[in-house]
């Protein structure tokens, strides 16, 4: 099941790329499409952050992950590179769990 999902994701993501390079620009150049395409990653990533940081099964819990996210915000405000943001969040969460 996981493999099937990986392969469908791969084919789909590739076709999305190829379509962009292949179809006449007019088809997708409407302002509405452009706006939604700009907002879609914002909505999905925000939702993923929420679920990832506060979700646990079908419950919402406050735990070390929230501290990790706060550290990530601080790292981003300091313009840290991606990998520093990610691993400083992990480090912060693991330290909180040690306490």
């Amino acid at each position, binding site marked *: 099941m996981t493999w099937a999902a990986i392969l469908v994701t791969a084919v789909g993501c590739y076709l999305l790329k190829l379509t962009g390079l292949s179809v006449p620009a007019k088809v997708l150049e409407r302002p509405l499409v452009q706006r939604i395409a700009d907002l879609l990653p914002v909505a999905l990533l925000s939702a993923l952050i929420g679920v990832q940081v506060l979700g646990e099964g079908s419950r919402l819990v406050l735990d070390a*992950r929230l501290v990790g996210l706060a550290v990530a915000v601080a790292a981003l405000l300091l313009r840290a590179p991606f990998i520093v943001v990610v691993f400083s969040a992990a480090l912060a969460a693991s330290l909180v769990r040690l306490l």
Partner: protein
Amino acid sequence: MTEPEPALSQHVRASITRDGIAVGVATGAYGVSFGAVSVASGLDVLQTCALSLLVFTGASQFAFVGVLAAGGAPLSGTLTALLLGTRNTLYGLRLAPLLSWRGWRRVGAAQLLIDESTAMSVSRDTTAAARVGFLSTGLSVFALWNLATFLGALAGESLGDPRTYGLDAAVGAAFLALLWPRLHTPINRLVGVLAAALALGLVPVTAAGVPVLAAAAVALVAGVLTGGRR
């Protein structure tokens, strides 16, 4: 791009290539975090490497493993990844006239169409310069992203319980880092807050994976409602 263009000088070509490789190194490095996070989400090393090789678009890959980590069905992961992958279509539309590749070259180039290769080619003046920027960035990100994914997955696997090392917290941080540069307007920030609130509200009452997909509706509604602003 109808007039014949002068060939790129050796100097310009080398300079664009150097920039492309630098972006590749910087971006490839976070493939380590993808590899570690993916294994922590329950995928094995081979599945993790397959994602980086075949899907090859970072946000979609992180979304896929993130939905699975939250207990979502693989299909929900696929749908979320595809929705995030739609932005590559728009990149392609913008780049197509500039790169003007046909046939198998276009079929091959498509896999390299990602945030970074777009950023490093969309602003070039000529097709030749855009192609060098696109290929040097795309190929170096591809090589390093996949190598780094493999190393990160191996490291993640040898660590044992990911929670001990806070790798579950790393997933949220990765999404936040991907989101951060997109929060440049009040509308985008509002959409982010509403989407997260909607998803969290749905967590107790829907199957895992559904809350994130439902949040896409916020983007649709906001896109329609802000229509009169141009």
